[in-house]
């Protein structure tokens, strides 16, 4: 089967949890062929791939959101009154669904993206949206916001892409939108896996962004919400990594029948016998992460400072790329210098994770937002205890669900609280005999619930099921797309 993976801002150009997951899944399913639809912010010809493409990848389609359309003769917009009505409902968030997307992807109807956004039809849609919303803000700003908002959407919808038998989107947002429209266009099922919650993350960003005028924030939030609804509505299966996110997806409009939880998984054999036999004098703390604000590296550094004040001897390695947000990485380096932690805290850059796991006594993660971090599963598989913040599925991983008998594999603390992190680290220093007790609990939990071959098997079933549905109802009604094509 040919599977199209829709990756927004990740595989194969940006490394991270989702991208690594895609790489692993493709390698684990050699029986399928994959096409990557990589959505990137803008076209950068020399962008280098962070992953070596497995043999079963048939192609990588790069789709820039920001596309400079060459100024050609303006193509005409030919829409019936009924179609204009459908579009107006969609743009004003009164409806979701295939109707509007079907029109917008059709160049013979709306012309090129720019010609549609410059058309009288779009102008009158903007006017009615403006009236429905606030109606007192600067109309010029509103109009330009609308054009900026939908330019990438039209570029995505009108992109010509090679056909596949199954579309698998690994996020909602633009990725989910492209997934929906491809599934409609090719008449094939859409599988949606959400590692985090796109809508929520965008919402937080928008609320914090000071460059968006307050009056426009509401529309941006609703815009991303609508994109998610499109994907939820079109998807045959909506998959989350853990229970908590499943509930959010339900709330976001996904149908209960389509929901499924499939966690991440690791290959236990790789992490066998990695752990060092006994702690040394200096406690070794390791964090595997990208140095970006969402990981809240500064809290980690403050906790190291507090730990030093308590007289605990330790070394703290922050292993991972610093290039993604160089400004933030620079700030972190300055903070380390200012707190005189240069002998204790090391920004090592990307490194061999397994080599660091070999030395580590405790692992730390202080993110302010997470899905189900692969790094945590890896550390647990190696039998090393954790101190993490209570975000995403971290608590579930640390404490286990009600049914599981293994006990905690570390501690969960509230986000942005260096004292709590330092407390827990100090506790491990004071109780070295507990390190392996906690570590073993983590490994057992992985063995029971988070093994890679299990996950792969689940996805193989999901793919087969979707393909079966397609065959059995070819043109029928189980696949929402079929009605519309």
């Amino acid at each position, binding site marked *: 089967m040919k599977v199209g993976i829709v990756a927004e801002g990740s595989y194969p150009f940006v490394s991270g949890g989702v991208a690594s997951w895609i790489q692993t899944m493709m390698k684990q399913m050699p029986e399928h062929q994959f096409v990557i639809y990589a959505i990137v912010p803008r076209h950068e010809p020399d962008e280098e791939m962070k992953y070596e493409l497995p043999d079963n990848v048939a192609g990588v389609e790069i789709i820039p*959101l920001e596309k400079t359309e060459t*100024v050609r003769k303006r193509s005409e917009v030919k829409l019936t009154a009924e179609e204009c009505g459908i579009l107006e409902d969609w743009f004003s968030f009164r409806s979701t669904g295939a109707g509007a997307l079907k029109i917008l992807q059709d160049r013979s109807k709306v012309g090129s993206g720019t010609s549609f956004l410059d058309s009288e039809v779009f102008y009158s849609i903007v006017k009615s949206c403006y009236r429905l919303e606030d109606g007192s803000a600067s109309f010029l700003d509103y109009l*330009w916001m609308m054009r900026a*908002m939908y330019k990438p959407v039209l570029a995505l919808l009108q992109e010509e892409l090679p056909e596949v038998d199954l579309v698998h989107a*690994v996020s909602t947002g633009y990725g989910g939108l492209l997934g929906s429209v491809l599934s409609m266009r090719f008449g094939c099922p859409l599988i949606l896996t959400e590692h*985090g919650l796109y809508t929520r993350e965008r919402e937080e960003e928008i609320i914090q962004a000071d460059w968006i005028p307050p009056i426009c924030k509401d529309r941006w939030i609703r815009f991303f919400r609508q994109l998610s609804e499109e994907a939820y509505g079109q998807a045959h299966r909506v998959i989350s990594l853990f229970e908590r996110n499943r509930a959010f997806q339900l709330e976001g409009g996904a149908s209960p029948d389509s929901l499924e939880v499939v966690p991440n998984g690791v290959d236990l054999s790789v992490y066998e016998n990695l752990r060092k036999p006994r702690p040394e004098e200096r406690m070794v703390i390791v964090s595997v992460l990208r140095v970006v604000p969402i990981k809240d590296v500064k809290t980690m550094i403050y906790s190291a400072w507090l730990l030093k004040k308590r007289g605990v001897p330790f070394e703290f390695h922050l292993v991972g790329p610093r290039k993604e947000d160089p400004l933030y990485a620079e700030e972190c380096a300055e903070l380390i210098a200012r707190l005189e932690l240069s002998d204790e805290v090391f920004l090592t850059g990307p490194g061999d994770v397994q080599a660091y796991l070999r030395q580590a006594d405790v692992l730390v993660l202080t993110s302010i937002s997470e899905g189900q971090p692969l790094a945590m599963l890896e550390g647990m598989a190696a039998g090393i205890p954790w101190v993490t913040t209570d975000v995403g599925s971290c608590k579930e991983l640390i404490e286990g669900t009600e049914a599981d008998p293994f006990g905690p594999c570390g501690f969960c603390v509230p986000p942005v609280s260096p004292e709590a992190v330092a407390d827990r680290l100090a506790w491990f220093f004071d109780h070295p005999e507990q390190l392996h007790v906690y570590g073993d609990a983590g490994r057992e939990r992985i063995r029971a619930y988070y093994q890679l071959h299990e996950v792969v098997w689940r996805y193989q079933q999901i793919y087969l099921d979707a393909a079966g549905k397609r065959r059995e109802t070819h043109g029928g009604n189980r696949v929402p797309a079929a009605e519309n094509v």
Partner: protein
Amino acid sequence: MAGIGFQLQKMFKDDHFSSNAKAYGYTAMVTAGPWLVVLATLLIIQRILPFSKTADFDGRLVVASISYCFIFSQIIFGALQLIVTRYVSDRLYERDTKSLFSVFLGALIVQGAAALLLWLVFCLWSVLPGMYNLLLLFLFMSLLIIWTQSVFLTAAKQYMTIVRAFVTGGATAVLLTILLSITTIPDRPFLYEGLVVLAFLAGMMVTALFLSRMLIGMFPEWGTRDLFKFLSYIDVFPHLMWTGLLYNAGLWVCNIMIWFGAGSTLIAGTFKVHLQYDTAIFLAYLTIIPTYMFFVVSIETRFYEKYKRYYGLINNGGSLGAIEQAMKDMQGTLAGEIKRLIRNQSIVTFAAILLTVLLFFNYGHDSDFLFMRLFGYVGAFSNALLLVNILLMLYFEDRKGAFRSAVIFFIMNAVLTYILLPTGESNYGLSFATGSSIAFIYSLNRLMNLMDSIEYHVFTPTQPKGAAGFFTRWSVRLSERFNQ
């Protein structure tokens, strides 16, 4: 989790708030006014000449010489008029007054070069004495100078001073001609004619001096950097150049073609003219003076105020409700003002027609001349209002509409004249009247449609701007060469 979220920031910031609509004043309109003063001066001189004490001279040569300088200076100036106006208007909008002088000088150099070229061709053809030809070159140049000066001064909205300068210059020319007519001038070939042309030139130079005195205050700097940078606007707004050129060429194309038709005369072996037709058209143009005056009053004040308010609201964060109210207000004012202009001009034109017909029955003339004059009035009526419409389209950045109107005007006049030319003098003027009227009706229709959907056009860049090209490269090259 992955996602492009944070990177989106850059993307939207670029697009956001980037395109503000801008209100333009194509006040160049008023520069069209002064040429009527020059034309009136010519007609008055034409009347004075027969009373001269000097007997042996050809008054027709004087009129033909001045008309040629006048017509061809208008056409050359026409090609640059709107380009320079737009360039100056953009500089003033950016509060960059420092570059004004270099634009002024650059525009003069470009026009001067074109004039010189045309004059050299003329010299090959002319059988007149070299001194006389040289005198014509000076007149040609001084007319180009005053047209160009008035572009800058109208941009500064000094309308009355401009009119005063032109009237003073015209009066000087007329006075000097009267002086010449009562003086005994030695009887040498072309001396008297040359002196009258010199009198006219003197008048124009008085105008130029007056205008210069006002201009000096406008230029804070006298630098000559980037003299020809304004030429790059031909690449950016090619429609503006063609609109100006074709409108001005369209005004005179019928005359030029008729110079080669039945009833035309070769004066002093050099100038082709059609005495009756040229006079008929010159006289007809005098009847549209009211439109120019009313335009300044109604469009530049009443309409412009609403227009500026409308654009101001858009740019300063006005709500849709407020913008729409201002738009309706502006649309109403514009429709009202256009109606008023048409009504006023109709009255004047109708009165002129009536008067001409009455005079015809009382004194009797040749009936071909009567029809030339009547057609002339209709043609002048149409092309005056056509110009109003073209300028209003430019106010709303409908450069394509302005361009098309000018193309129709030029082509209709040229083609109809070509077709009707063989039918003889009785139809002279018919092509001018018909061509101008078709162009006027087209432009009015286009303007009305534009006004109906104006909000959409204001918020949407209707035409992609041209990219840097031939003229941009040459503007840089020429500027550098000049500064070496």
